[in-house]
């Protein structure tokens, strides 16, 4: 029971990160109907930029709390800015000119873009993993089981985990408000429904799509920072696996649905953590891929998505 609780906390943390990336997939899919294959790599860029800026600022776990908070705030802004620029550029260069081309064209372009980003970062920053001293330490003991009760085990939640879960919640709330309450969100939802009609009604479709990419990149960059702080390491390749898992989350939640992406992220995080805890760590990725395959085959509309009727 205690062990399970601990895994639940870990799963929630990991799931939050996946969920944040998944939103980017789901929004882009919703609006232009393609998988932004390079999205996982934008997450990686966010993580890498966070690492570089933290290193440049020279903050360590020993710096004062104020300093750390200030530095993190700065890092969030910079990482979001840079990731947005990347994702915006990707859309302008690799996807926008292909609108109206045959269906596989943007997908192949996206695969190419994903390779470009990975290789670009690998060449510029070397391929070796970048380790980092833990920045946020400490935590709380939630429960303790003694040896007499069947094994020494302490259920802990670290400050880092609290931060990830809470900030994800805050970000999600802000984001949902943005989509539901503002003109931008309305434009975005209109484009999802019918791009052509939206443009006839005076919505600037190109701009709306650009903004969608930027929003997705912001969330991915934030997830990248959280990933860095949680695992204390980053490299040029993290975007590949995280990308596939986040995509799985988006599909599981029902592609196009933002709460779905978050829910899917949590489920995938849980599955991965539980699988590692109870079965085998080696096959945790296989488990995640299996979920992807199962969902796509048996439940392509996902948990919160709408079923698609084939139009003949």
């Amino acid at each position: 029971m205690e062990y399970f609780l601990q895994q639940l906390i870990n799963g929630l943390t990991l799931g939050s990160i996946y969920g944040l990336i998944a939103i980017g997939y789901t929004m882009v899919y919703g609006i232009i109907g393609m998988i932004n294959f390079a999205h996982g790599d934008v997450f990686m860029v966010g993580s890498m930029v966070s690492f570089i800026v933290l290193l440049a600022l020279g903050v360590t776990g020993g710096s004062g709390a104020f300093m750390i908070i200030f530095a993190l705030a700065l890092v969030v802004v910079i990482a979001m800015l840079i990731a947005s620029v990347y994702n915006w550029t990707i859309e302008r260069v690799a996807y926008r000119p292909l609108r109206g081309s045959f269906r596989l064209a943007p997908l192949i372009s996206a695969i190419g873009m994903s390779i470009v980003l990975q290789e670009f970062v690998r060449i510029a920053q070397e391929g070796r993993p970048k380790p980092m001293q833990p920045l946020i330490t400490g935590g709380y003991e939630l429960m303790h089981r003694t040896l007499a009760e069947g094994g020494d085990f302490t259920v802990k939640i670290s400050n880092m985990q609290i931060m990830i879960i809470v900030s994800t919640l805050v970000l999600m709330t802000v984001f949902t408000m943005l989509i539901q309450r503002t003109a931008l969100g309305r434009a975005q939802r209109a484009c999802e429904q019918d791009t052509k009609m939206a443009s006839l009604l005076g919505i600037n479709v190109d701009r709306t799509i650009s903004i969608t990419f930027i929003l997705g990149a912001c969330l991915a960059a934030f997830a990248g920072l959280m990933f860095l702080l949680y695992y204390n390491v980053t490299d040029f390749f993290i975007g590949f696996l995280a990308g596939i898992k986040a995509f799985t989350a988006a599909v599981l939640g029902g592609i196009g649905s933002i709460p779905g992406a978050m829910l899917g992220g949590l489920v995938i995080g849980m599955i991965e953590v539980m699988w590692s805890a109870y079965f085998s760590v080696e096959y945790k990725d296989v488990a995640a891929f299996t979920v992807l395959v199962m969902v796509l085959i048996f439940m392509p509309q996902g948990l919160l998505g709408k079923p698609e009727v084939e139009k003949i």
Partner: protein
Amino acid sequence: MSVAPKNNSSSDDSKALTTSALTKDLISTAIITLLVLIPIVAMKTVIGQGIISIVYRFGMAFALTGIVVGTRLFLHLFVWHKAPSAGSKSTLTSGLKSVSFSETITKYIAPGLLIFALLFPVFTFFHPIWDKRVMDLAVYILIYIMLGWGLNVVVGLAGLLDLGYVAFYAVGAYAYALLSTVYFPQWFGTGILPWAFYITLPVAGLLAATWGVVLGFPVLRLRGDYLAIVTLAFGEMIRLVLVNWFSFTNGPQGISVPKITFFGLPFKDAPGSFSDFFGIQFNRIHFYIFLYYVILTLALITYFVTKRLRRLPIGRAWEALREDEIACRSLGINTTTTKLTAFAIGAMFGGFAGSFFAARQGFVSPESFVYIESALILAIVVLGGLGSQIGIVFSAIAIMGSFELFREMDFMKVVLPSGTEPIQFRMLAVGLAMVLMMRFRPRGFVTKREPTVFLKEKKSVSGDLVAEGHG
């Protein structure tokens, strides 16, 4: 990424160019390029002796930005704003010319290539580049041509985007490795070993085909992006199993396997070997030349079988499936079996190639079967022109050859920052090529589709009409 912003805003390109607009455009290009470059390129993190430090390379970032802005300025001044009528006219006429020109020349391309390929080792014999490196490169290119032709059945003909093709390559390689090192000695004794490749080859093909069906079955209903990502997941799953199933596959250490023999005669400097049997001087090159002819044979089998299949009802059904799946079903075509046969045939060729790869290498490990290999094979098919077999030959030569060139380009080191080798840029170049190709020549090098049957006259179908499949 450095070329990134120069293709911006195709929609404004036709606008008349004013100085202020140009300045604005260049300044925004510069800002965006700088933002892209500054943290990643200009601040290089270096790990050394337990300390991570940053090496600042702002000069490089500014230089690259200068190049990007300069290129964009050049494009603005000399390319994008030229009167479109003149431009389109010239492309039109040259297009027309190239149609008739290409139609006369395509007749001779395939036989010409075939003769060249058959004689290639002889050329090297008379030439000082008689060199095992050249033969090895040729073998390497042929493997990718064969893989491209195999994947072409699935992606180019049936229109099913498979991002996990390397899985079948792996199945073929491991089938050879495990059968020849573990099972054949057990079943038939070690005497069989010199013949292992020839016995395993069909088995490997069949196994890979079976896997093609097994993995194809669950994804039948999926299309486009979903199909791509599921096949990618399958490819990775197979690799992960190869890495982790230690007792069966020996995990990441891989397996050493016997190399290919000349129908039982090994290539080594010893009695009972190839050179001994024919009474000639032992030379490593014999091994490479033999490898070359084996892979050439396999590749030609792939070529001719696929060509033949295209003219049979099954091949026509594949192409029809790519064009419109619903229409296929309305004509009584069982799309399930049609898709599965495409997967199976494609996988079978992948399995043959994998088996050969293992026999050439003498060693297999999961590292050879990563996702990027699938992407590379896909890039070859895409650049060659989906569905075009000759196009694939050229794109495989271009991509694999350029990899080799990257390795040779020592002079590039002058331009490149210290510590970077040109070879590191090869996948970056492939990725960029995929993006640019989709942008400027989405149908690949060869855009025409040859009809499979005709009444009076064989007319190629323009690539614009050919659907590339919804999945």
